[in-house]
């Protein structure tokens, strides 16, 4: 469909940025701290749902993959598989120091290291654990990437 394909593309981009679905994955070498801070970001005090973000259970439905924790040997293959199951376009957020580079667990026998050793990462959110505000900022950066520019009113 040649006519209107630009308009259609713009519409799709707008729709994606306004209702991104987020999959939360714990990659193994994690202590849970970032998990609960991510959930706290979804609850009334911080509320990322005002960006239209919804937590989903299946990688097939997700636009954003939020990974917490470094990757351990048991989850290595599973992280790759879950990433491959997600439809394009997809954005990966690495939340917490462990998922950025392995953090405190570097050197343990069952730990591979940061998430970017396994799959490409778009946004890094450091912190141990990062505050919900930092996670929301990370999500915002991911949305910008998904939209291809600043979607909060400014021109691209």
């Amino acid at each position: 469909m040649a006519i209107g394909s630009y308009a259609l593309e713009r519409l799709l981009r707008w729709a994606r940025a306004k209702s991104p679905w987020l999959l939360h994955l714990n990659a193994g070498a994690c202590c849970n701290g970032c998990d609960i801070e991510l959930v706290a970001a979804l609850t009334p005090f911080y509320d990322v749902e005002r960006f239209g973000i919804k937590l989903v259970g299946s990688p097939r439905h997700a636009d954003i993959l939020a990974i917490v924790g470094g990757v351990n040997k048991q989850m290595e293959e599973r992280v790759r598989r879950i990433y491959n199951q997600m439809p394009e376009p997809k954005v990966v957020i690495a939340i917490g120091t462990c998922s950025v580079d392995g953090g405190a667990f570097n050197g343990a026998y069952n730990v591979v290291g940061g998430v970017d050793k396994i799959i490409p990462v778009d946004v890094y959110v450091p912190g141990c654990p990062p505050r919900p505000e930092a996670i929301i900022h990370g999500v915002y950066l991911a949305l910008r990437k998904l939209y291809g520019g600043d979607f909060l009113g400014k021109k691209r």
Partner: protein
Amino acid sequence: MAITILPFGPQHPALAEPEHFRFKVDGEVIVDVEVKIGYLHRGMEKLMSTKTYVQNIYMSERICGICNVAHTTCYVQTVESLAGLEVPKRAQFLRVVVNELARIHSHLLIIGLAAHEVGFETMFMWIWRDRELVMRLMEELTGNRLMSAYNTIGGVRRDVDEKVISALKKACTTLRESFLQIRKVFLEDPLIRTRFVNVGLLKSRDAIARSAVGPVARGSGIKTDVRADDPYQAYKDIPINVVTYKECDSWARMMVRVDEIFECLRLIEEALENLPSGEVRIPVSRKMPEGEAIGRVEAPRGELLYHIISKGGEKPYRIKIRTPTFSNLYPIVATFIGETIADIPVILISIDPCFCCTDRMEFVDVNSGKVWYMSTSEIKRKYWR
């Protein structure tokens, strides 16, 4: 009907770490369960034996982010008994305050998630709003929301001032009113009662034989609590009431947690009321003597045990950590048998698993060998009536 294998996990829902269960189901009814743990295995015990005692405070904190205060308390207490140290009284009382605050936050978290599991979203949001108040108190008291690093060998890192004490006391009053409402919902709400009552029965005899700990054991009517049986820190000076329920089902296990929150509030108020004056920290040598020590702490999920073997020097020779969920897993695995697929999330959440793997499941049909996936939300949709 043919028996179907239903693998459960390793990827999961709102909260949670990956874990894998393999349910054999006959139609809707579970006939056998097999567990594969270790999706979160990092090799902490080995890693901790290569680090010094001071570094290990931070490592023990990162075993579990939710009960990090219980982990550091237990680690620090074990090292102190290894070295034969007596911690200042004020520090002991402050440890009680921070432990109970962490227990409230952990219990609220799991009660909220339990409401979320049965589809009671309003309750989930409501509880997590109150939990945020507790997190702010933690931040005011320790300097961080979650990973507080409050305990250290020989005492605690920060003293409290009048401002923090009055903020804590004020918050206790507000929280108590709010929790009375939550308790009322758990006692009376038909949605909660239909999903929780008589689901996942664990008889007292079985709970003892299968070595259940913490709220799981207390929900089966066993009066066991490390704070009462084997008092540590200032629990020697503040007597606690052990909450038990005799119903033995998932509802009883949740009610133990709901009632314990009131007990936590009372303990915080009492500890702040009787807070002794003086030092909060004593200087400690980096090197520890040769020997062994066992420390036990009542973490939010049950008994936590550290066993440290030292051969002298700056580093421990071996640290054994037994976390409560590891103990509670086997008792609960047996209670799945005879229940239906729709009850799996409820039973799992009722042990407050430090992993809760409830999001995606893989279904294998034995006859055709076909595998398909299903998320908890889909299961909810499909099986809810």
